[in-house]
């Protein structure tokens, strides 16, 4: 089991950041690497069990299933069903925590997955840096003060 953990400080109130990231179908609006997204079966994007089917700007297609969504904890968990990445049992959680000092937000994104040992380092780098941190960097710029 490989774990990836990335966290960052977003210079905006947690409620504002949550408004952006809670939309399970909203990745194209803030994640710089996502081209377009849809929810399969015409389901609501906040219905637990719904599947988002999105295309990366590099052409890759990913299907992910919403496992948990909490407006109380400001967190969202999902599993990969299909992706170009050689990972199995991939489950990730994106969560926000208010930082009262300065009214900002701690954003955390973590994932656990299985992969072959020789691919672990590259996948950790790709997911942690190329996906999670890249998305946080975009969020920081979006809310930049």
């Amino acid at each position, binding site marked *: 089991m490989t774990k990836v953990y990335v*966290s960052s400080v977003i210079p905006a109130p947690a409620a504002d950041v949550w408004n952006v990231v809670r939309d399970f179908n909203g990745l194209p609006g803030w994640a710089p690497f996502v081209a377009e997204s849809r929810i399969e079966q015409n389901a609501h994007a906040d219905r637990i069990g719904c599947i988002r089917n999105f295309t990366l700007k590099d052409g890759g297609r990913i299907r992910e299933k919403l496992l948990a969504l909490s407006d109380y904890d400001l967190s969202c968990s999902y599993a990969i069903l299909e992706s170009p990445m050689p990972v199995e049992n991939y489950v990730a959680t994106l969560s926000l925590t*208010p930082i*009262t*000092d*300065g009214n900002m937000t701690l954003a*955390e994104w973590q994932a656990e997955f299985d992969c072959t040992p020789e691919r672990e380092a590259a996948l950790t780098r790709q997911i942690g840096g190329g996906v999670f941190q890249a998305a946080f960097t975009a969020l920081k710029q979006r809310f930049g003060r």
Partner: protein
Amino acid sequence: MVQVRQSTIIDAPIEEVWAILRDFNGHDRWHPAIASSEIDGGEPADAVGAVRHFRLADGGELREQLLALSDKDRRLSYCLLESPLPLMGYVASIRLKPVTDGNATFWEWRSEFHPPAHRRDELVKLVAEDIYRAGFAAIRNLLGRRAAATPAEARPSPAIMPSRPTGVAARPVPSPAILAPSGNMAETTRAILVERYGGPDVLQLKEIALPPPAPDEVRIRHTAIGVNFIDVYCRTGFFDLMRLPGVPGMEAAGVIEAVGAAISGLSVGDRVAYACPPVGAYAEHRNMTADLLVRLSDDIPDEAAAASLLKGVSASFLLHDVHAVRPGEVVLIHAAAGGIGQLLVQWARHLGATVIATVSSDDKARIVERLGAHHVIVYSREDFAEAVMRLTAGAGANVIYDAVGVDTFAGSLAALAVRGHLVSFGQASGPVGSWDIDRLASKSITVSRPNYAHYTNTPEKLAPHVDRFFTAFRQRAVRVGQPAAYGLANAEDAHRDLEARRTSGALVLMP
């Protein structure tokens, strides 16, 4: 029920912040509202259930109990047991999260309690601002000061740690720092590096690399370094305590500059001293395993600690454990003007013994007389065994403390009383060599050859000696003279003077 939640970002790696916050009894060292704190019953501060009893700067007294502690989640929960304020049912928790984007730390402090309705706003504000936000600011200041302080320290490389100590101590070799926080470039410190065993000239000042402290280590900025004869034995290779290239020295005082992730009970800024392997004290900075560090109270100066901790602890177990000196006993102390000799003379007298001292010169005789020796023998002028017999009307000494070695061993046996005890704890003049133990039967003599480590290599063994010595120091039962101070770069001169017996009292190196 009200909830208070405050959180902030501290610009320091999570290991550093957690090292400070996880110490349930350490808050008096960083929180401005807290004057002093102790754990009831002397329990460890990281035992769940421990109760901290603390006083506020304004005099109020509180007791709080540790309910949960997790190094995994870096989370700590506690409740209030007694307080001058009506914070009914107060349960609080602290938790940290790493901010990987920038290597900082998220710190949340939250609580729930039932205030009386008419004081609700006042108490919420007090908890949120005077306790939590004031605490944030204090830790931010503390770590900021540390970051602005000198560059980091040195641990001798693992290659120089003793793998097979003979003369002293089996202590675990510090593990390399595998959890080095990023951003620490190759740091260095100035240190005396021995590249080959030999004379004082092998003590050369060099710039050596220093990794960040391992989880079980602290990083110390030395303020004074003790020089002991055991350092000579390390330098010459007589004791297998220092692998080459290596940094000698087993005693120093200083200030903690950083703590490893697994450290509790010690914080950045604490004044500490140590007197134990592994070697490496002859350096401006070093990393050191924390278990045998001694915290220094304000009334113990750095120089005095560096000059006397090893000798004081040694004197404590020599006079109390190896042989329990009783009032009225005749105690003979060789090399009585030396660092440990001076302590033995004063302390044995304080214990009620009749003290006979031997020294090499009249100047040293005067020093020892001033310390309270009842009789002083200048052994270069007089056979000390005969003198002891004359002074004791033929009875001899009940116990003899002899670190001189080959030059005095035979005379010491001759100077002992029937059922006397010879404590041989050094060999400054050379190894004692082989002796036929049948000779001891003529007076039913006991010979002890104590090893420092066996009396001091665990916190449990060490603590009583440290307490006893510092108590004697505070009561002025033993006085530590102003040590002769040398610059760190002049360690060579210090060793030369020590070996030539040009010194009396303790020697320290000043970084």
